[in-house]
């Protein structure tokens, strides 16, 4: 994705209405087969910012996103909107369709074998905005095209999703989420399986969405990418000895991504360097 995306942005029909809305997950608990995966986890995503959800494998990052998205019922805790018009609204108690107009999730590796075109895939994002019996309106198509353009994928509109590369597919999924016109965007490992250029392009897009007022909560694997992109990070540690996964640290990148915090969680030795051009932290491990 070219750095010019922000410049040739369409009259952005795919951006949310109203003031930015943050997110607060409180004391979220979830277990499977008697094993506690999340144990009273608190996560806040400030409005209009990129919040990175970090942690080793098995820390429950994806699970937490699925719970926040309302796909999975937690055993305990709640998820609230914070700030904006619906301050304090309980996301999990919200009617599904209204929740789908408020919040969108881009999963890891959501694929299909069906011969569906990119534009049709993005139009799926309009589902919660119209009656089950209605077809695509001209308005829906306009929003979908706006979302595609915003994601830098307008040229892919006629392609079949199955023929796309990983980076292209990721942009289509982002466009589909944008077509929902969400105020909160959840991303599960959005850079997974992408080459370096596609990783940077995806995160630049995420960054610019947040600058437009979309609240982003993204599970990320790569700590350096997170350090370069996120405003805030939340570090989850997997549960041990019967205890569930919990939040080890949360806050601005500079406070959390430091050796004293990272080393015990990942079991590595971390050195924090500075990117010579951006000045953001670059993490090296041994």
């Amino acid at each position, binding site marked *: *994705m070219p750095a010019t995306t922000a410049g040739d942005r369409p009259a952005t029909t795919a951006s949310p209405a109203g003031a930015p809305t943050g997110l607060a997950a409180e004391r979220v608990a979830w277990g499977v087969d008697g094993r506690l995966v999340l144990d009273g986890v608190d996560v806040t995503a400030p409005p209009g910012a990129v919040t990175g959800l970090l942690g080793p494998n098995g820390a429950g990052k994806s699970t937490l996103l699925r719970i926040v998205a309302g796909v999975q019922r937690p055993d305990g805790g709640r998820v609230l909107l914070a700030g904006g018009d619906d301050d304090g609204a309980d996301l999990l108690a919200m009617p599904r369709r209204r929740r789908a107009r408020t919040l969108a999730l881009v*999963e890891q590796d959501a694929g*299909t074998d069906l011969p569906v075109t990119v534009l049709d895939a993005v139009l799926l994002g309009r*589902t919660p905005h119209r009656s*089950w019996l209605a077809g695509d309106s001209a308005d829906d198509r306009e929003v979908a095209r706006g979302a595609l353009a915003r994601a830098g994928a307008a040229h892919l509109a006629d392609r079949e999703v199955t023929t796309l590369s990983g980076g*292209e597919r990721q942009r289509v999924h982002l466009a589909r989420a944008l077509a929902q016109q969400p105020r909160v965007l959840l991303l599960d490992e959005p850079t997974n399986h992408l080459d370096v250029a596609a990783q940077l392009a995806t995160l630049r897009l995420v960054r610019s969405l947040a600058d437009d007022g979309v609240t982003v909560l993204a599970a990320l694997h790569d700590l350096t990418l997170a350090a370069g992109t996120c405003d805030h990070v939340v570090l989850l540690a997997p549960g041990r000895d019967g205890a569930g996964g919990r939040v080890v640290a949360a806050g601005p990148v500079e406070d959390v991504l430091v050796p004293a915090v990272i080393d015990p969680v990942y079991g590595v030795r971390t050195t924090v360097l500075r990117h010579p051009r951006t000045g953001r932290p670059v993490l090296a491990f041994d």
Partner: protein
Amino acid sequence: MTSAPTGTSADASTGTAAAPRATSGARRTGPWAAVGAVALLASVVLAVAVGPADLAPGDVWRSVATHLGLGDALGLAPLDRLPDAMVWQLRLPRVLTAAAVGAGLAVCGVVMQSLTRNPLADPYLLGLSSGASLGAAAVLVLGATVLLPVAAFVGATAALVATLGLAAASGRGRGIAPARTVLAGLAVGQLAAAATSFVIFWSAKGDQYREILSWLMGSVAGATWTSVAVAGGAVLVLGTALACTGSLLDAFTFGDTAAATLGVPVARVRWVLLVGVALLTGALVAQSGSIGFVGLILPHAVRLLVGARHRALLPLSALAGGTFLVWADTLARTVFEPRELPVGIVTAAIGAPVFAALLWRGRARA
């Protein structure tokens, strides 16, 4: 599916400006729907005219108009008694039953393929056909032929309940996964097939073999106006209801999680639609026996024409399925005249190579 993340920055530079207007499936639906409706109607008329005693399509119209009480209004003279009976008592019920069964099976196929996200799914995948066959074989052996439709229906429904129960139980309360549902359907289907074989082996005598075999291979030869009422009524009520679920099914394109985040009550929709498919399939196989490949092939073929969006796919598959089975049945009764083939043999003989071709095409594309 290619997973190589190549050339992302290169193709992005070709830019957002030169986006061609997409011709997505939705906008090509209208003409295809008209073509499909005309084709089905013409097929019914022509298929009734085809047969040993040659009738003209005009004769078919005359007979139908007379029976509908429109003969005088349209100034059409009634047909002679013999050809009229042939049209109205024999061929028309048979052709209409074939059309209804074909349309219903195609709709069931689309819904099943979408809900299980398995392109191989068809109404028989979940053991429905085997369950219906077991019920049918049991009553045929007992000599209670009048109960056949009921038994087939009960068998199909019982098989579906067993399949979904097994799939849900093996999912340990985390919902029904496509792969597990298919495997559970296989298990139930094999069990029912074994039980059917046992019933036939143990107790079938004389002509019962022939009767059971003909049912297992599928046929609309014995169709009456009652068959038309049951199959047609089921298609009109259940088929129409299922055909209206297009945007719900679309939401499943990228899986259950994606559907849930689009505001779809995933579990409820899946159960309601699967039960709808089971009821419709049960009503259809009770009239026709188990006819394979219609629910499998037709949705694939229609997808090639109009894309994967279900609002177009569902009604067009219904029209195509009806047309297909009308002609398959016409072939079944005319190819080896005066002997008749079970129509299931014809659909399999056409369907299997077409399916192989679709696989080949899919391979070339992926």
